C-alpha cells in the first residue's frame, strides 16, 4: 500500500465521546458496560450493553429536523464524522468534494427506527409508517447522511461484513486513495444494536455473555470463565489522506496504514475455523504487504470475541504466524471495557491502537482472572502498560469466519 496516513479521529463510544475523553477512560481500565436502560430487556438472556451517554451535547451541528428523520446509527456516525474532521483540522471548503469519499462499515442497520415503524405497520396499517423509514434503516443510510450533510460527492461505499465491516471499509478507502481516485476519505463504521429486535438477533447467535448480574465483569476475553462478548453502540471515523498531501497542508499525522488482508474460513455460519488457519494466512499476507518483519510487531489489538472457539482459534493463529515470539508480543482487547460495536468495532480498534502509539501505552484486556491453558499469550491483563509502539496489527473477525487484518505504523 502506498503512503496512506490517518490524520484525524472521531469517536463516539460508551467510554466517552471525542478521543481525549475516550483515551482517559480506557487507559484507566474502567468498564462502562451497564444494564440496558433504553427498554425493558428483562426477558433477554443477555441484557447488558455499552451505551453512549451525552450524545445530545455533541449534536449542536445537527438540527432536530434532521435528527427526527434518521436512526441513531446515522446520528452516531454524523457526530463521529464531525469530530474527525475537526480533529484533522479540515474545513471541507478547501477540498474538492467530488474527490472526497466516505467508506463505512455496519452490521445490522438502523433498527431503533425500523422497529417502531414495523409496530405501526401492524397496528395502524400501511399509512402508519413514517415516510422517513425508507431512508433511515438500511446499512448505507449513514454514508448517505454524511454525504448530504457535507455535500461529499466522490466514490463511496458501505461494507456489511459482521464485526469486520469497518476494518474493511478503512482498507478500501485507503486503497481508493492509493489509486488516486480520491484525495480525502472519511472511513469508519457505526452500530446501534441496543434495540429490542437487534438485541434479540445478537442473542440468538449464542455469542453474548449472560453475566447480567455483574455487567462490568461480563466481557472477559481469553479468560477461562469467558461466556461471550457484550454488544455496544457507537461510531469511529478516521480521516485518511496521502502522506505527501497531508504534509503539504501541515496536517496532524497519526499513523500510516501499511497493509491489509481479508479472507474467509469457509467453515461454519457462526463459529470460526477452530485452528485459525485462514486468520493466520490473513496475518501473514498483511505483514507481507506492509513489508514488516514478524520481529518488528510491538502490539496486536485482538478481535477477542470471548467465545471458546473464537479465543482459542485467534490465539492459535497468532502462534502459527509468530512462533516462539508470539508470547513476547502484547495482545490486548481494550473493547472488553466498553463492549463490541460490531460493524463499527474495527474503526474503534484502529483509533485505540493509534492512541496507544501516541501515548506509548497499551490498554488492557480487563476481567482477565483465570488463565486458560489453551490461551497462553500476553493479553496485558487488567492494567495499562507503558510501551513504545511503532508497528501494530489490528484483527477484526465476523460470524461465519470472516477475517480481516490491518497493519499500522507510527509516523514520526
Amino acid at each position, binding site marked *: 500500500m502506498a503512503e496512506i496516513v490517518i490524520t484525524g479521529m472521531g469517536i463516539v463510544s460508551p467510554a466517552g465521546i471525542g478521543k481525549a475523553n475516550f483515551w482517559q477512560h480506557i487507559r484507566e481500565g474502567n468498564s462502562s458496560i451497564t444494564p440496558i436502560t433504553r427498554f425493558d430487556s428483562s426477558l433477554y438472556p443477555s441484557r447488558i450493553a455499552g451505551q453512549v451517554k451525552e450524545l445530545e451535547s455533541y449534536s449542536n451541528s445537527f*438540527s*432536530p*429536523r434532521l435528527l*427526527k*428523520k434518521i436512526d441513531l446509527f446515522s446520528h452516531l456516525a454524523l457526530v463521529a464524522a464531525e469530530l474527525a474532521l475537526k480533529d484533522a483540522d479540515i474545513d471541507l471548503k478547501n477540498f474538492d468534494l467530488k474527490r472526497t469519499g466516505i467508506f463505512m462499515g455496519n452490521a445490522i442497520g438502523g433498527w431503533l427506527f425500523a422497529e417502531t415503524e414495523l409496530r405501526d405497520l401492524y397496528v395502524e396499517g400501511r*399509512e402508519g409508517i*413514517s*415516510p*422517513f423509514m*425508507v*431512508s433511515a434503516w438500511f446499512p448505507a443510510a449513514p454514508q448517505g447522511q454524511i454525504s448530504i450533510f457535507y455535500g461529499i460527492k466522490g466514490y463511496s461505499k458501505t461494507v456489511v461484513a459482521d464485526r469486520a465491516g469497518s476494518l474493511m471499509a478503512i482498507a478500501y478507502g485507503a486503497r481508493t486513495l492509493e489509486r488516486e481516485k480520491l484525495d480525502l476519505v472519511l472511513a469508519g463504521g457505526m452500530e446501534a444494536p441496543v434495540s429490542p429486535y437487534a438485541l434479540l438477533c445478537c442473542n440468538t447467535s449464542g455469542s453474548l455473555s449472560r453475566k447480567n448480574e455483574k455487567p462490568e465483569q461480563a466481557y472477559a476475553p481469553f479468560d477461562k470463565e469467558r461466556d461471550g462478548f457484550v454488544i455496544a453502540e457507537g461510531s469511529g471515523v478516521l480521516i485518511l489522506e496521502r502522506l505527501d498531501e497531508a504534509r503539504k497542508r501541515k496536517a496532524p499525522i497519526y499513523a500510516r496504514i501499511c497493509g491489509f488482508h481479508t479472507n474467509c474460513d469457509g467453515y461454519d455460519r457462526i463459529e470460526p475455523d477452530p485452528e485459525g488457519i485462514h486468520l493466520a494466512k490473513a496475518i501473514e499476507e498483511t505483514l507481507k504487504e506492509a513489508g514488516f518483519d514478524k520481529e518488528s510487531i510491538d502490539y496486536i489489538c485482538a478481535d477477542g470475541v470471548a467465545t471458546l472457539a473464537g479465543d482459542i482459534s485467534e490465539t492459535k493463529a497468532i502462534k502459527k504466524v509468530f512462533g516462539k515470539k508470539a508470547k513476547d508480543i502484547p495482545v490486548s482487547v481494550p473493547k472488553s471495557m466498553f463492549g463490541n460495536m460490531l460493524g463499527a468495532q474495527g474503526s474503534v480498534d484502529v483509533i485505540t491502537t493509534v492512541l496507544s502509539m501516541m501515548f506509548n501505552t497499551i490498554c488492557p484486556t480487563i476481567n482477565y482472572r483465570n488463565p486458560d491453558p489453551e490461551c497462553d499469550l500476553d493479553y496485558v491483563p487488567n492494567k495499562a502498560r507503558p510501551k513504545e509502539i511503532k508497528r501494530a496489527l489490528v484483527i477484526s473477525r465476523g460470524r461465519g469466519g470472516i477475517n480481516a487484518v490491518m497493519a499500522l505504523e507510527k509516523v514520526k
Partner: protein
Amino acid sequence: MSVEEEVKEAIVQTLSVKPEEVKVEEKLSDSLGVDSTEMVDLTVALEKKFGVKIDAKEITKSSSPQEIVTLIESKKAAS
C-alpha cells in the same frame, strides 16, 4: 384556532422548524427547503388533523401554506 393557525402548527410540528420560519405566501420548497418525504409526512399529519383526504398531487413542495389553507377550507366546506 383558525385553519391557517392549525396548518402553521402542523408544519412547525412535522418539520421541526420554528414558527417564524413558516412564510405563509412562499412555496414550502423555497422557505423551508422541504423534501418529498417531508411532504408525505406533512400530508398525513394534515389528513389526521382535519379529517380530510388529501391526494399527493394536491399538495406539493411548490405549495405555499396559504394554498394549503385554501385547499383544506374547500375540502371542509364540501364535506
